[in-house]
């Protein structure tokens, strides 16, 4: 019998039972809850006369709707406020731990999970949010679910699911300075497509991954869903354990010793079989910039926007043409000639302290270009914000003309007041460049924090490697 992958091991450990037809009842160790995808689940629970199976396994936080302007006492938008208050009321009714607005622990759900030690290696973690794949960076089986499944986990602590297949992505070599895990993720999606990982759990491995910090691994796993994979994973190593140790909800003392012993086994066996494998040479990559309305529409910063007439087939050419029309671009345009209106540094992809340090290192001694209407820096959590302020990063940003905001999802999906106006063009460190994602008619280019910072200073895209030279 061949060995097992990391994903196999996590799956087997949480399988309550598997039916003859292959449906597994999977035990869920922790559910993270936010205000947008939970109200209908709590209502469903109440209507059926049920209650949460294990309230001690749930953490709630409001992030999607919260305003990020400083010093707000309450949410000005009444509809958003009602949704956040509904979460507060549900948490109070069922005795759930919530980090409410204004709490220093509040932040984007996928930032606070690892940060607080809520997410631990070897767990199953679900959340009604597709970017739950982020938590797989800690060798956690984590995936996004819909509201019906949120209710299912609340009611039963389990999900009936079919096991996805195993996919291995090896990122070989060492990335150049100025090229980060966001660039690797975008290049991978450009290579395999946004459906390239559908039906799979992706394990990331290889030298570039081994040398990454935990936060860089989170960025990589966060973007696994943009490749269609519900889960991303990285094996446990000293970096993982070093990150988890001492966090608020991590075990201590003898429990830590026992946990560490078990977590050390969370890696794929040498003879494990993956149904699919992809190799990417990380050392050869340049910083990436998306040009279209799907994350797979991406090129290197030192190249040009592709031409539809050079597409492989008619269907693809049609998709490219529609995307270029929406984006207000022409095939053949040089990427570094594209001028920006707004800059967004934030989101569950890139709003951790290392992301802000990376952006600040580029901004230091520079200023936003005159054509930039707004450059936002939105820390991923209250804790990230406090850490950045203790390092003086907030002053670097504000002195350069950036706005320094309160934590939240913000302009990644524009459910709060932070949004693009129709036709405006934004360099964003978030994860989706879909039509209207950052505001109806808005045009999004996905980049790394360093690239967004450089674009803010230049007013157009630049190869950040020139700034760092």
């Amino acid at each position, binding site marked *: 019998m061949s060995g097992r992958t990391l994903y196999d091991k996590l799956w087997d450990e949480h399988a*309550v039972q598997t*039916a003859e*037809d292959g*449906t597994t*009842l999977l*035990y869920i*160790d*922790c559910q993270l809850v936010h205000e*947008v*995808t939970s109200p*209908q689940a709590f209502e469903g629970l109440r209507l*059926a006369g049920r209650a949460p199976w*294990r309230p*001690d*396994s749930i*953490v709630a936080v409001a992030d999607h709707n919260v305003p990020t302007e400083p010093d707000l006492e309450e949410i000005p938008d009444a*509809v958003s406020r009602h*949704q956040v208050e509904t979460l507060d009321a549900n948490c109070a009714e069922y*005795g*759930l*731990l919530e980090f409410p607005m204004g709490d220093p622990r509040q932040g984007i759900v996928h930032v606070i999970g690892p940060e607080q030690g*809520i997410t*631990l290696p*070897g767990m199953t973690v679900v959340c*009604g*949010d*597709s970017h739950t794949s982020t938590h797989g960076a800690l060798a956690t089986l984590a995936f*996004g*679910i*819909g*509201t*019906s*499944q949120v209710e299912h986990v609340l*009611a*039963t*602590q389990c999900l*009936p699911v*079919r096991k*996805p297949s195993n996919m291995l992505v090896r990122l070989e070599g060492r990335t150049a300075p100025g090229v980060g895990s966001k660039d690797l993720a975008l290049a991978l999606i450009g290579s395999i497509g*946004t*459906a390239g990982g*559908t039906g799979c759990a992706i394990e990331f491995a290889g030298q570039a991954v081994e040398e990454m910090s935990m936060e860089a691994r989170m960025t990589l796993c966060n973007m696994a869903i943009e490749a*269609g994979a519900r889960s991303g994973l990285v094996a446990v190593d000293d970096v993982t354990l070093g990150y988890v140790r001492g966090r608020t*909800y991590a*075990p201590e003392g003898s*429990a830590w010793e026992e946990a560490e012993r078990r977590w050390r086994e969370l890696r794929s066996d040498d003879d494990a079989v993956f149904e699919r494998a992809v190799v990417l040479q990380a050392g050869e990559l340049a910083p990436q910039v998306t040009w279209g309305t*799907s994350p*797979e529409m991406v090129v290197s910063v030192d190249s040009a926007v592709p031409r539809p007439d050079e597409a492989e087939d008619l*269907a693809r050419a049609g*998709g490219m043409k529609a995307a270029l029309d929406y984006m207000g671009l022409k095939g053949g345009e040089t990427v570094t000639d594209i001028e920006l209106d707004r800059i967004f540094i934030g989101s569950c992809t890139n709003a951790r302290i290392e992301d802000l340090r990376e952006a600040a290192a580029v901004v230091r001694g520079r200023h936003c270009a005159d054509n930039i209407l707004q450059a936002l820096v939105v820390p991923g959590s209250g804790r990230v914000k406090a850490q950045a302020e203790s390092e003086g990063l907030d002053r670097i940003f504000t002195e350069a003309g950036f706005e320094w905001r309160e934590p939240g999802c913000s302009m990644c*999906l*524009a*459910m709060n007041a932070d949004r693009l106006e129709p036709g405006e063009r934004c360099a964003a460190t978030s994860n*989706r460049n*879909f*039509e*209207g*994602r950052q505001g*109806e*008619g808005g045009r999004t280019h996905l980049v790394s924090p360093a690239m967004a910072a450089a674009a803010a200073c230049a007013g157009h895209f630049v190869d950040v490697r020139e700034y760092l030279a």
Partner: protein
Amino acid sequence: MTPFVRHRGVVAPLDRSNIDTDVIIPKQYLKSVKRTGFGPNLFDSWRYLAPGDLESDHARRPRNPDFVLNRPRYQEASILVTGANFGCGSSREHAVWAFLDAGFRAVIAPSFADIFDTNAAKNGLLTVQLSEAAVRTLLEETEQTEGYQLDIDLPEQTMTADSGACWSFDIDSQRKRCLVEGLDDIALTLRHANRIREFEAARRAQAPWLFDRFGSP
């Protein structure tokens, strides 16, 4: 959940790949705490000429005459045929609720994104996966024949056109059963409550640090 056994309805074509859930239902409607009322906002940014929100009177918003679903012949459509990787992106189940609220019962595509596909099954919206070639044929037939209808028979796993053309499709057996019988799958899981409790007790013994972590005791 409303059971899905057989359904006959008008087919509408939306010839585009990688349609994401942000396009199916834009973010401003996600502020609702209800499951209903999203029908007028299905493909909102394509359907209307200007943005709206939860408080808009959608009946009065000017419609985009170029958007295929606004054409009179598709007003009664209940089956959508569309491109690959349908429903990618955000996990928002509102996308499925919008389809149902707009009167759709089935979506046919070469492939679906995982989360959308799961959400659809939980709500009685049938997703039918067909080959690229079969979807291309359906897109063309729908365009060419006004009032083009399909008869979907889930127990038989077939779709039949008035011309007699017939396609069979695959579906997960458990999903089929839940759809046909309109089952509450939470109740199905709770039948195994004792087994879950046993598993939980063993897990607590193995990994006690994962228990009694959060919330009020």
